Protein backbone atom coordinates (compact mmCIF):
# COMPACT_ATOMS: atom_id res chain seq x y z
CA UNK A 1 0.00 0.00 0.00
CA UNK A 2 1.12 3.49 -0.82
CA UNK A 3 1.30 5.99 2.01
CA UNK A 4 -1.80 8.14 2.21
CA UNK A 5 -1.33 11.53 0.62
CA UNK A 6 -0.27 14.21 3.06
CA UNK A 7 -3.35 15.98 4.29
CA UNK A 8 -2.97 19.76 4.67
CA UNK A 9 -5.84 19.81 7.14
CA UNK A 10 -3.62 18.09 9.73
CA UNK A 11 -1.20 21.05 9.70
CA UNK A 12 -4.00 23.60 9.70
CA UNK A 13 -5.67 21.93 12.66
CA UNK A 14 -2.38 21.76 14.58
CA UNK A 15 -1.58 25.40 13.82
CA UNK A 16 -5.06 26.50 14.93
CA UNK A 17 -4.75 24.51 18.17
CA UNK A 18 -1.39 26.12 18.97
CA UNK A 19 -2.72 29.56 18.03
CA UNK A 20 -5.66 29.13 20.42
CA UNK A 21 -3.28 28.22 23.26
CA UNK A 22 -1.04 31.22 22.47
CA UNK A 23 -4.03 33.58 22.49
CA UNK A 24 -6.06 32.18 25.37
CA UNK A 25 -3.27 31.24 27.80
CA UNK A 26 -2.96 34.78 29.26
CA UNK A 27 -6.68 34.82 30.07
CA UNK A 28 -6.84 31.22 31.38
CA UNK A 29 -8.33 31.07 34.87
CA UNK A 30 -5.95 30.71 37.83
CA UNK A 31 -8.76 29.52 40.10
CA UNK A 32 -8.76 25.96 41.46
CA UNK A 33 -10.62 23.50 39.26
CA UNK A 34 -13.77 21.68 40.30
CA UNK A 35 -12.09 18.86 42.22
CA UNK A 36 -9.56 21.18 43.94
CA UNK A 37 -12.40 23.50 44.95
CA UNK A 38 -14.43 20.62 46.40
CA UNK A 39 -11.35 19.29 48.24
CA UNK A 40 -10.93 22.73 49.80
CA UNK A 41 -14.64 23.09 50.62
CA UNK A 42 -14.90 19.67 52.25
CA UNK A 43 -11.48 19.92 53.87
CA UNK A 44 -9.66 16.96 52.34
CA UNK A 45 -7.13 18.88 50.25
CA UNK A 46 -4.45 17.98 52.80
CA UNK A 47 -4.74 14.29 51.88
CA UNK A 48 -2.79 15.13 48.71
CA UNK A 49 0.73 13.68 48.84
CA UNK A 50 3.70 14.15 46.61
CA UNK A 51 4.79 10.62 45.75
CA UNK A 52 6.47 11.38 42.47
CA UNK A 53 8.69 14.45 42.55
CA UNK A 54 10.82 14.12 39.40
CA UNK A 55 8.48 15.96 37.04
CA UNK A 56 10.73 18.36 35.08
CA UNK A 57 8.08 21.07 34.71
CA UNK A 58 5.66 21.05 37.66
CA UNK A 59 2.68 23.41 37.19
CA UNK A 60 3.47 23.87 33.50
CA UNK A 61 6.22 26.28 34.41
CA UNK A 62 9.58 25.59 32.80
CA UNK A 63 11.50 28.55 34.27
CA UNK A 64 9.66 28.41 37.61
CA UNK A 65 8.60 32.01 37.34
CA UNK A 66 4.97 31.69 36.25
CA UNK A 67 5.39 34.13 33.38
CA UNK A 68 3.50 33.82 30.10
CA UNK A 69 6.65 32.85 28.20
CA UNK A 70 7.56 30.21 30.76
CA UNK A 71 4.11 28.57 30.84
CA UNK A 72 3.67 28.86 27.07
CA UNK A 73 7.05 27.21 26.45
CA UNK A 74 6.17 24.37 28.83
CA UNK A 75 2.80 24.03 27.10
CA UNK A 76 4.34 23.88 23.63
CA UNK A 77 6.81 21.25 24.81
CA UNK A 78 3.87 19.29 26.26
CA UNK A 79 2.01 19.56 22.96
CA UNK A 80 5.07 18.29 21.08
CA UNK A 81 5.62 15.36 23.47
CA UNK A 82 1.94 14.37 23.39
CA UNK A 83 1.81 14.54 19.60
CA UNK A 84 4.96 12.46 19.23
CA UNK A 85 3.69 9.88 21.71
CA UNK A 86 0.33 9.62 19.92
CA UNK A 87 2.07 9.34 16.54
CA UNK A 88 4.25 6.48 17.78
CA UNK A 89 1.36 4.67 19.50
CA UNK A 90 -0.85 5.24 16.45
CA UNK A 91 1.77 3.79 14.12
CA UNK A 92 2.24 0.77 16.37
CA UNK A 93 -1.48 0.12 16.67
CA UNK A 94 -2.71 0.74 13.15
CA UNK A 95 -3.56 -2.24 11.03
CA UNK A 96 -1.30 -3.28 8.19
CA UNK A 97 -3.53 -2.12 5.33
Amino acid at each position, binding site marked *: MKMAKRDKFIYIFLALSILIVVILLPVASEHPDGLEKVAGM*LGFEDSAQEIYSSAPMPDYDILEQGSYTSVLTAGLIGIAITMTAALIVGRLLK*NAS
Partner: protein
Amino acid sequence: MHIPDGFLSLPVSIACLVIVILFWIIAFSRAKKVMGEKHVPLLAVIAAAIFGGQMLNFTLIGIGGTSGHLIGAALVAILLGPYAAIIVLTLVLLVQALVFADGGVVVFGANVLLMGVVGGLFGYMIYFLTRKTGIAISSFLAGFTSVVAASIVCSVLLGLSGTIEMSRALIAMVPIHMIIGIGEGFITMGIVLYFQKTRPDILKLKKV
Protein backbone atom coordinates in the same frame (compact mmCIF):
# COMPACT_ATOMS: atom_id res chain seq x y z
CA MET B 1 -10.52 16.73 37.49
CA HIS B 2 -6.95 15.44 37.83
CA ILE B 3 -6.80 13.45 41.06
CA PRO B 4 -3.51 13.98 42.94
CA ASP B 5 -1.77 11.15 44.80
CA GLY B 6 -3.16 10.70 48.29
CA PHE B 7 -6.83 11.39 47.49
CA LEU B 8 -7.54 7.71 46.82
CA SER B 9 -6.66 4.62 48.85
CA LEU B 10 -4.20 2.12 47.44
CA PRO B 11 -6.82 -0.66 46.94
CA VAL B 12 -9.10 1.75 45.05
CA SER B 13 -6.16 3.00 42.95
CA ILE B 14 -5.15 -0.57 42.08
CA ALA B 15 -8.73 -1.61 41.29
CA CYS B 16 -9.02 1.36 38.90
CA LEU B 17 -5.75 0.42 37.23
CA VAL B 18 -6.92 -3.17 36.74
CA ILE B 19 -10.18 -1.99 35.13
CA VAL B 20 -8.24 0.44 32.94
CA ILE B 21 -5.79 -2.28 31.82
CA LEU B 22 -8.79 -4.31 30.59
CA PHE B 23 -9.99 -1.29 28.61
CA TRP B 24 -6.49 -0.74 27.20
CA ILE B 25 -6.49 -4.32 25.93
CA ILE B 26 -9.90 -3.83 24.30
CA ALA B 27 -8.85 -0.44 22.89
CA PHE B 28 -5.58 -1.77 21.45
CA SER B 29 -7.27 -4.73 19.78
CA ARG B 30 -10.01 -2.46 18.41
CA ALA B 31 -7.34 -0.11 17.06
CA LYS B 32 -5.46 -3.01 15.49
CA LYS B 33 -8.64 -3.95 13.65
CA VAL B 34 -9.95 -0.62 12.36
CA MET B 35 -7.25 2.05 12.67
CA GLY B 36 -5.75 2.80 9.31
CA GLU B 37 -3.22 5.15 7.69
CA LYS B 38 -5.71 8.05 7.79
CA HIS B 39 -6.41 7.79 11.49
CA VAL B 40 -2.81 8.10 12.72
CA PRO B 41 -1.99 11.76 11.94
CA LEU B 42 -5.46 12.77 13.13
CA LEU B 43 -4.94 10.87 16.37
CA ALA B 44 -1.64 12.71 16.85
CA VAL B 45 -2.90 16.27 16.23
CA ILE B 46 -6.12 15.70 18.16
CA ALA B 47 -4.08 14.42 21.14
CA ALA B 48 -1.91 17.56 20.87
CA ALA B 49 -5.02 19.76 20.75
CA ILE B 50 -6.53 18.05 23.81
CA PHE B 51 -3.28 18.62 25.74
CA GLY B 52 -3.34 22.30 24.79
CA GLY B 53 -7.05 22.63 25.50
CA GLN B 54 -6.67 21.15 28.98
CA MET B 55 -4.26 23.98 29.88
CA LEU B 56 -6.92 26.61 29.25
CA ASN B 57 -8.98 26.81 32.43
CA PHE B 58 -12.13 28.89 32.20
CA THR B 59 -13.70 30.65 35.20
CA LEU B 60 -17.08 29.25 36.18
CA ILE B 61 -20.00 31.63 36.20
CA GLY B 62 -22.15 31.34 39.30
CA ILE B 63 -19.54 29.73 41.57
CA GLY B 64 -16.96 32.11 42.98
CA GLY B 65 -13.29 31.35 42.48
CA THR B 66 -13.58 28.08 40.59
CA SER B 67 -12.43 27.03 37.16
CA GLY B 68 -12.92 24.15 34.82
CA HIS B 69 -11.15 22.93 31.75
CA LEU B 70 -11.76 20.73 28.77
CA ILE B 71 -11.43 16.97 29.23
CA GLY B 72 -11.90 16.22 25.55
CA ALA B 73 -12.83 12.54 25.79
CA ALA B 74 -16.29 13.05 24.31
CA LEU B 75 -14.76 15.12 21.52
CA VAL B 76 -12.22 12.44 20.59
CA ALA B 77 -14.94 9.78 20.87
CA ILE B 78 -17.16 11.64 18.40
CA LEU B 79 -14.32 12.39 15.97
CA LEU B 80 -12.38 9.11 16.09
CA GLY B 81 -14.32 6.72 18.32
CA PRO B 82 -14.62 5.85 22.03
CA TYR B 83 -11.55 3.61 22.15
CA ALA B 84 -9.50 6.29 20.43
CA ALA B 85 -10.65 8.55 23.28
CA ILE B 86 -9.25 6.07 25.81
CA ILE B 87 -5.92 5.93 23.94
CA VAL B 88 -5.65 9.72 23.53
CA LEU B 89 -6.62 10.54 27.12
CA THR B 90 -4.21 7.88 28.42
CA LEU B 91 -1.35 9.58 26.56
CA VAL B 92 -2.36 13.12 27.55
CA LEU B 93 -2.72 12.12 31.22
CA LEU B 94 0.57 10.22 31.14
CA VAL B 95 2.48 13.25 29.82
CA GLN B 96 0.72 15.52 32.32
CA ALA B 97 1.52 13.26 35.28
CA LEU B 98 5.14 12.46 34.40
CA VAL B 99 6.32 15.77 32.93
CA PHE B 100 4.07 18.35 34.59
CA ALA B 101 3.09 16.75 37.93
CA ASP B 102 -0.56 17.30 36.99
CA GLY B 103 -2.47 14.30 38.33
CA GLY B 104 -0.94 11.63 40.53
CA VAL B 105 1.10 8.59 39.59
CA VAL B 106 -0.37 5.98 41.97
CA VAL B 107 -3.83 7.22 40.97
CA PHE B 108 -2.97 7.24 37.25
CA GLY B 109 -5.40 4.38 36.57
CA ALA B 110 -8.18 6.29 38.33
CA ASN B 111 -7.58 9.41 36.25
CA VAL B 112 -7.64 7.36 33.04
CA LEU B 113 -10.80 5.62 34.27
CA LEU B 114 -12.58 8.94 34.93
CA MET B 115 -11.48 11.07 32.06
CA GLY B 116 -10.68 8.46 29.39
CA VAL B 117 -12.92 5.44 29.94
CA VAL B 118 -15.98 7.03 31.59
CA GLY B 119 -15.66 10.28 29.66
CA GLY B 120 -15.10 8.57 26.32
CA LEU B 121 -17.65 5.77 26.61
CA PHE B 122 -20.41 7.88 28.18
CA GLY B 123 -19.77 10.72 25.79
CA TYR B 124 -19.97 8.42 22.80
CA MET B 125 -23.05 6.63 24.12
CA ILE B 126 -24.94 9.89 24.63
CA TYR B 127 -23.81 11.17 21.22
CA PHE B 128 -25.11 7.97 19.64
CA LEU B 129 -28.40 7.86 21.59
CA THR B 130 -29.24 11.52 20.88
CA ARG B 131 -27.98 11.60 17.26
CA LYS B 132 -31.53 12.22 15.93
CA THR B 133 -31.52 15.65 17.61
CA GLY B 134 -28.79 16.76 15.20
CA ILE B 135 -25.02 16.83 15.46
CA ALA B 136 -24.87 20.15 17.36
CA ILE B 137 -27.17 19.15 20.20
CA SER B 138 -25.87 15.59 20.45
CA SER B 139 -22.25 16.82 20.61
CA PHE B 140 -23.15 19.29 23.34
CA LEU B 141 -24.96 16.61 25.34
CA ALA B 142 -22.06 14.18 24.88
CA GLY B 143 -19.56 16.73 26.24
CA PHE B 144 -21.84 17.72 29.12
CA THR B 145 -22.62 14.13 30.14
CA SER B 146 -18.99 12.97 29.94
CA VAL B 147 -17.96 15.51 32.60
CA VAL B 148 -20.92 14.87 34.90
CA ALA B 149 -20.46 11.08 34.64
CA ALA B 150 -16.75 11.42 35.41
CA SER B 151 -17.53 13.61 38.45
CA ILE B 152 -19.98 10.98 39.76
CA VAL B 153 -17.39 8.22 39.42
CA CYS B 154 -14.76 10.48 41.02
CA SER B 155 -17.06 11.02 44.02
CA VAL B 156 -17.67 7.28 44.32
CA LEU B 157 -13.91 6.63 44.31
CA LEU B 158 -13.34 9.30 46.97
CA GLY B 159 -16.09 7.69 49.05
CA LEU B 160 -14.76 4.14 48.62
CA SER B 161 -11.31 5.38 49.62
CA GLY B 162 -12.69 6.80 52.86
CA THR B 163 -11.32 10.25 51.96
CA ILE B 164 -14.76 11.85 52.38
CA GLU B 165 -18.30 10.47 52.69
CA MET B 166 -19.59 9.55 49.25
CA SER B 167 -22.81 11.52 49.67
CA ARG B 168 -20.96 14.72 50.59
CA ALA B 169 -18.59 14.23 47.67
CA LEU B 170 -21.49 13.74 45.25
CA ILE B 171 -23.42 16.77 46.53
CA ALA B 172 -20.35 18.98 46.10
CA MET B 173 -18.87 17.50 42.92
CA VAL B 174 -21.88 17.02 40.66
CA PRO B 175 -23.35 20.58 40.61
CA ILE B 176 -19.91 22.16 39.97
CA HIS B 177 -19.23 19.69 37.18
CA MET B 178 -22.62 20.34 35.63
CA ILE B 179 -21.42 23.91 35.12
CA ILE B 180 -18.03 22.73 33.85
CA GLY B 181 -19.96 20.30 31.64
CA ILE B 182 -21.74 23.19 29.93
CA GLY B 183 -18.32 24.53 28.94
CA GLU B 184 -17.23 21.08 27.79
CA GLY B 185 -20.48 20.76 25.82
CA PHE B 186 -20.00 24.03 23.95
CA ILE B 187 -16.33 23.33 23.16
CA THR B 188 -17.18 19.82 21.96
CA MET B 189 -20.03 21.15 19.84
CA GLY B 190 -17.92 23.93 18.32
CA ILE B 191 -15.07 21.65 17.27
CA VAL B 192 -17.36 18.91 15.95
CA LEU B 193 -19.24 21.51 13.88
CA TYR B 194 -15.91 22.81 12.57
CA PHE B 195 -15.00 19.30 11.43
CA GLN B 196 -18.42 18.78 9.92
CA LYS B 197 -18.17 22.03 7.98
CA THR B 198 -14.58 21.72 6.75
CA ARG B 199 -13.93 17.96 6.70
CA PRO B 200 -17.11 15.89 6.95
CA ASP B 201 -15.15 12.92 5.56
CA ILE B 202 -13.20 12.69 8.84
CA LEU B 203 -16.43 12.19 10.78
CA LYS B 204 -17.25 9.33 8.44
CA LEU B 205 -13.99 7.47 9.11
CA LYS B 206 -14.47 4.11 10.77
CA LYS B 207 -14.68 4.72 14.53
CA VAL B 208 -11.96 3.25 16.70
